[in-house]
């Protein structure tokens, strides 16, 4: 990687008179010794895989623990009544985030972006954006490069794994990637993309990873909604001219520090927080008993 901060990506783009996503695409070509069209083809394939996973959502499917499944369909039906508070766009974002996260919990095929547990965030905002604003395929792939570059910086400066940084590293990172991608689609320049990353990530700092029974289901599925919606509101703030007091790279470093110092019991070990509540323990016991029967 020729860049190690979001600021560097912005500077490179400025100096070379190209855009944020192009710097990331070029770097992939250099890194893996492939042509720009080969790299772009692969990114389009990722976008199509997200679409396909969304289309193939099966409302009747339940996860092996039976905790996850079917909620995406409920959200779809409710939004369609027009009575929902958050409106058509956010309603669709919520529906798609839950659907993708449920597909993942039910052993369906998804695109990890950046992780399997946070796989609903990016497609929820991108697929909904395409549906409402009728963008070209190329534009959507460019938005994915923007997101990927942001993820690369977070992975290098902090972490994208719940086991090392808590949920802020998974849903937080996904949300920052999605906010950057949406800001790009709304016509925001590098500076605004960075502000969107900063604002969205600040909102999710400190989030713990304490899943019930150690499974990627509770609270993970619904947290994909938080990550996606947070990306939409952060984008709107930035496009309205709101700026972040703390620069994005410094927010990412803060996330890394918080992750390092976060107690082990909140980092995917299921030894604290939600995972040790009486309700969670009862579910764990139930799962254990049903496994013994098999």
């Amino acid at each position, binding site marked *: 990687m020729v860049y190690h901060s979001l600021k560097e990506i912005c500077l490179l783009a400025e100096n070379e008179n190209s855009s944020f996503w192009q710097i990331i695409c070029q770097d992939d070509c250099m890194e893996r010794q492939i042509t720009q069209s080969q790299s772009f083809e692969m*990114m389009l394939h990722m976008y199509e895989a997200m679409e396909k996973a969304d289309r193939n959502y099966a409302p009747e499917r339940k996860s092996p623990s039976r905790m996850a499944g079917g909620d995406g369909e409920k959200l779809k039906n409710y939004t369609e009544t027009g009575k929902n508070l958050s409106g058509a766009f956010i309603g669709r974002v919520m529906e798609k985030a839950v659907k993708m996260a449920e597909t993942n919990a039910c052993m369906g095929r998804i695109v990890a972006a950046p992780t399997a547990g946070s796989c609903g965030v990016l497609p929820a905002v991108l697929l909904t954006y395409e549906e409402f604003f009728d963008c070209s395929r190329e534009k959507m792939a460019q938005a994915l490069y923007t997101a990927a570059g942001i993820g690369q910086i977070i992975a290098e400066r902090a972490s994208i794994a719940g086991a090392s940084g808590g949920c802020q590293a998974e849903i937080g990172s996904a949300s920052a990637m999605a906010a950057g991608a949406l800001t790009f689609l709304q016509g925001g320049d590098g500076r605004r993309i960075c502000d969107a990353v900063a604002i969205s990530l600040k909102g999710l700092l400190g989030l713990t990873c304490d899943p019930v029974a150690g499974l*990627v289901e509770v609270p993970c599925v619904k947290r994909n909604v938080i990550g996606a919606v947070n990306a939409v509101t952060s984008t709107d703030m930035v496009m309205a001219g709101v700026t972040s007091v703390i620069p994005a790279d410094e927010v990412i470093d803060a996330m890394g520090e918080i992750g390092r110092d976060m107690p082990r019991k909140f980092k995917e070990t299921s030894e604290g927080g939600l995972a040790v509540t009486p309700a969670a323990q009862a579910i764990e016991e139930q*799962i254990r008993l049903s496994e013994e029967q098999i």
Partner: protein
Amino acid sequence: MGIKMNVFEIVGPVMVGPSSSHTAGAVRIGYVSRQLLGEKPAEVSILLYGSFLATGRGHGTDRALVAGLLGMLPDDERIPESMEEASKEHLKVTFGKASLKEAHPNSVVLQMTGQSGRKLEVQAASLGGGRIKICRIDGLEANFCAEYPTLIVHNMDQPGHVAEVTSMLSHKSVNIASMQLYRDRRGGNAVMILECDEEVSDEAIKWLEHLEGVLKVTYFSMKEDNTENS
């Protein structure tokens, strides 16, 4: 912290859920183990350890390992039905508990018998993000990630074997990316692990197998499923 990841490690991979470590990594462990066996497995005893044992069923780790043993990759939509596929393909699978010392929390031991009767025991760990490590082969230290063509030679601990293997690779124009040597005791069983930049030919592997003092040769090929013609 501070991991450099490429664009498609961030947006991607396409995989069957729910967990990159407990599902995608487990498929890869099964797949790489099948490649190492070098033929279709007929009977496999799967011994789970740590988090694989504790939360394996909820994450589909059991089905993922079997899917990999059947030659499926982490994006194969048949992974949830791998148990049914296994009985169709006459692969007999049993599950148990592994008793390991100081192993990675996501570890598994696969005791495989191939259709020709070849036996191989692989201990592997899923490191996260779908990455894996092969930790032991037939009880001897291994320690490689199956991201390069990898040659594993078990031999008697006596002078000359390293020279034989490396000069053969040099003769075949295969460049060595990394090399590790281990032994259980002086003059006992030794193992060398060579990660290569190019594939090693079947003929070269057969030649190695016939050398005096060489006990077993195992090879991981990056070519898709090298067990199909066996």
